[in-house]
């Protein structure tokens, strides 16, 4: 906590300093191409989002310097975290973060703490949905859970990565339904989707974007969304079903909720001016048509949070994730 206070103090001091020097000098702007660091592989949800931002910034001339996307998905994303940690003071690099910032340090003892970086903005929330192969008879979570309970060998649940959000959701699902799953960690959500279509797994808990195309093709069926309320999009997506037609898992009698942040971070030790530039930049990005279209298409929940609100949210989210990881027994000793 002291670290955070010091950081805030420094920030405040820097801000005061800028105000003192007056507005004669123009606000800070990047002097080199800006690198969006992706903590996942090519084609994954983070990569897609980074490319959307790259094209939104470029097409709408939101910044003079060009944007490059740099993929640092090594070691399940730990590579990107260590890269950002080692970039203190370099305001030309922004990380597009998700729940791995809480989970990876716990499960794999990666020496990283998100408080070492500078939070800039939360830009969206991603949902999770329980999916089954369309050729199976299950229409409700209860039917599926009952079948899973009776099955030997246990049903296979596909997901991305081990001891991460998909795995945690699987454990939560086991606890609430009493069924047991054999969890298969694949390397990407896309792979988890095709493996479900090929009937190599019985179900997965993919993000909407990861299963969108196979759903539209009628190959998979959503059972419920792990969220407090239904997804807000009413436009028809697959046949005459919309994202909003998927019931919540809670309504289906299985009270499991999880939403994942998509947020931007600068490295540590950047000035308040630099942070302010990016807050403004991402604010403008969330107002572009590209962003809005992307949110709707991928069924993401639009959001925008900066400054104190964001830090408060991150602290709460961290506690929540830590609790889930501890309950699931995924914290490395």
């Amino acid at each position, binding site marked *: 906590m002291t670290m955070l206070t010091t950081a805030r103090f420094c920030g405040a001091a820097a801000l005061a300093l800028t105000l003192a020097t007056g507005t004669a000098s123009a606000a800070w702007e990047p002097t080199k191409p800006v690198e969006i660091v992706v903590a996942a592989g*090519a084609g994954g949800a983070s990569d897609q989002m980074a490319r959307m931002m790259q094209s939104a910034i470029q097409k709408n001339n939101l910044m003079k310097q060009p944007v490059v996307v740099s993929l640092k998905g090594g070691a399940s994303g730990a590579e990107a975290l260590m890269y950002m940690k080692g970039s203190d003071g370099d305001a030309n690099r922004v990380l597009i973060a998700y729940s791995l910032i809480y989970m990876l340090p716990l499960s794999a003892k990666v020496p990283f703490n998100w408080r070492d970086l500078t939070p800039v903005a939360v830009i969206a929330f991603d949902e999770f949905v329980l999916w089954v192969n369309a050729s199976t008879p299950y229409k409700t979570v209860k039917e599926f859970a009952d079948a899973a309970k009776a099955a030997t060998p246990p049903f296979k649940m596909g997901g991305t990565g081990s001891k991460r959000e998909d795995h945690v959701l699987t454990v939560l699902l086991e606890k609430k339904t009493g069924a047991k799953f054999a969890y298969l960690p694949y390397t990407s959500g896309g792979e988890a989707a095709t493996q479900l279509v*090929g009937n190599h797994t019985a179900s997965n808990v993919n993000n909407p974007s990861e299963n969108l195309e196979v759903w539209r093709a009628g190959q998979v069926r959503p059972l419920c969304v792990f969220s407090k309320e239904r997804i807000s999009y009413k436009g028809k997506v697959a046949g005459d079903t919309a994202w909003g037609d998927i019931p919540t898992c809670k309504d289906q009698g299985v009270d499991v909720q999880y939403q994942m942040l998509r947020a931007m971070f600068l490295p540590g030790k950047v000035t308040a001016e630099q942070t302010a530039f990016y807050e403004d930049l991402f604010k403008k990005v969330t107002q572009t048509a590209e962003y809005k279209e992307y949110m709707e298409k991928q069924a993401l929940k639009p959001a925008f949070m900066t400054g104190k609100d964001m830090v408060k949210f991150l602290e709460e989210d961290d506690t929540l994730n830590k609790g889930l990881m501890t309950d699931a027994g995924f914290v490395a000793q």
Partner: protein
Amino acid sequence: MEAFGLLLQGFGVLLTWKILALMMVGLILGIFVGVLPGLGGPNGVAILLPLTFTMDPTSAIVMLSCIYWGALFGGAITSILFNIPGEAWSVATTFDGYPMAQKGQAAEALTAAFTSSFIGSLFAVLLITFLAPSVATFALRFGPPEFFAVYLLTFCSFVGLGREDKHKTIISLTLGLLLAGIGMDTVSGQLRMTFGSTELLRGVNFLVAVIGLFGISEILLTMEEKLALRGHTASISLRTVWKVWREMPRYWATLLRSSIIGSWLGVTPGGAIAASFMGYNLAKRFSRDPKSFGTGRIEGVFAPETAAHASGTAALLPMLALGIPGSGTAAILLGGLMVWGLNPGPLMFVEHKDFVWGLIASMYLGNVVGLVIVLTTVPLFAAVLRVPFSAIAPMILVSCAIGAFAIQNAMFDIWLMLLFGIVGYVFKKIGIPLAPFTLALVLGNRAESSFRLSMIGAGGDLTVFWSNPLVGTITTLAFTLLFWPVISALFDRGKRLLLPAKSERSGPA
């Protein structure tokens, strides 16, 4: 023949000056990217992707895929001239390509490489054109056990069919598997063998190892042999090209076999790398004169290049039809498609017909134009061999270092590359083959995780590898290849026992 009509429409979309010009630009950029070791197709496409955001999707994908074709062509150039694979899938091309260059047949080897690349792509494109939907369904049949069986087949074909001593192949393979284990274990989510180092988190990058093992060690060996690059009297003319083309039909079986292997491994993401190795090994196995492989046989260039290209091209099919990229470059192209609002998946072929068929038509056109470009520049590339070694070695070294650095922007990788250079030098001196090592490094992780996923899914029951005809056939084939030397020896003995009279008669004669 609905496909044929759609394809013609696709050509109609492409035949404008603007698109043809973009195609040329893409191909030339791609060849450069392919020539520089380590820079590679994925990086090249990633760097140039933003350039295309302002274009319409068809122009953009045509240019990007042409960079990809260019890189596929370019990868062979340095393999043949300097024994340094420009791309991972060109490793197998060095086996016979470099000896050919040493014998003064650099131009022949390059022509062979480019032409067979073209044939491989053409085969795969034809497959995409006419069989896209059914091939895509075939790929869906691959779960963890099937994937593991394919990797096992690749490993076994190496041990069973390799020219080198079996124990040395196994030593090399095992060391590669060990190094592949460094970094994050995706199945348990734990770090392995990183010893607290953040540099080791990423694991050992395959390309860094390839550049060191092949490139740096080759420079060390050449230095030892009095700074002379051998084989610099390559005569180059159109006649050479013609000569190679006339010879080609004789190797139709190799070309066809490699095309099939390549397409298969491209569709089921086994990758161009495994395909090129398997193509080479099988060509050797079925050859009447296996011992001459590795000494500069043109067939040894045909086989891996055809397979690598067929695979590189076929890898685009699962990307379009399933949204699963079959290769690194395909994964970046996938990212690009999404930026243009095209979501690859089962409905792509239905909803975006114009785009898909424009792309397929561009595969035909891009490969033809690419072949012409690379062939006309063969003399230029082969002339590099006439430059004195003392002048070119530092350039190669710098280019290797840039390549190793560029893969992950890490200084550590340059040290790693130098270390692998020394390892490669020692291995060559004591006769341990390098190829199994690199193969294990690239496929080790995937093989391990698909094995463990199969075990989790089957509750530890090994019979899962014979649980359906598909996986059973591949697994059995793998073991047959592994024990091939024993099996063929038994066959020979059996023949002698069955036909004793004949062998007695032929003896004294």
